[in-house]
């Protein structure tokens, strides 16, 4: 599936999950800040992506879940260098470099963008891993 096809299918999936218009689903749009996603929506997005692309998305593969609940990773409201490294390891599709410029934990959700989802799906399709 080519890039345009992945984008259109992902866009449709996010529109259905979040009740937003296609014009709102731009690559740079944040799922939370711009598209209004809440905790239940992240699970809904995963389920719908699995259905749309016939893939299985393991827990924690796309969105971080609770990996930063460890006290080593967040101190005084900021993600520590160890936490940033944990994000790089566990979430290679997240723009950790962009986030690290001001790593306030309250800002992390802003970096869960449409582009992050596109990167993940594109990578899964390129690796041709339909159901793991």
């Amino acid at each position, binding site marked *: 599936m080519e890039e345009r096809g992945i984008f259109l299918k992902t866009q449709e999936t996010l529109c259905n999950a979040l009740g937003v218009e296609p014009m709102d689903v731009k690559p740079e749009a944040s799922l939370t800040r711009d598209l209004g996603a809440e*905790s239940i929506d992240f699970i809904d997005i995963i389920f719908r992506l699995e259905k749309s692309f016939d893939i299985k998305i393991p827990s924690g593969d796309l969105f971080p879940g609770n990996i930063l*609940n460890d*006290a080593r990773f967040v101190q005084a409201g900021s993600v520590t260098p160890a936490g940033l490294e944990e994000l790089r390891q566990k979430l290679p599709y997240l723009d950790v470099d962009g986030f690290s410029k001001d790593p306030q934990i309250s800002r992390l959700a802003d970096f869960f963008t449409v582009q992050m989802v596109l990167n993940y799906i594109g990578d899964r399709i390129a690796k041709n891993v339909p159901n793991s």
Partner: protein
Amino acid sequence: MTLSGAGVDLISLARAKRFLKSSGSRVKRLLAGSETRLVRSLTPLMFARLFSAKEAYLKATHDPTLDLSDIEVKILPRGRFRVKSLRLAGRHFLEAEGCFFHASSHVGALVILWKP
């Protein structure tokens, strides 16, 4: 006993309804233990309660290894619930009690964890 953690979560009933409709049988992946018996009769309100209780427990325990399917919620009378992890999480306590609250068209859950 000392207070060890607290967690709160809120979910819109409309969102819960939409999620149940679209997820179908996949919702089983979020259920634990005895909860799986409810899957065929799960209403948006029941799901919203289970989900918010699990999320509140996750926030209270700060356990990064837990998934929603590792957490079992037992609904008690008068808007209360008991919640526990189904596997060891490296903490001294695994069970907690909480209560539900309703705000407009949302359902919320509050969990308090006590250390013996």
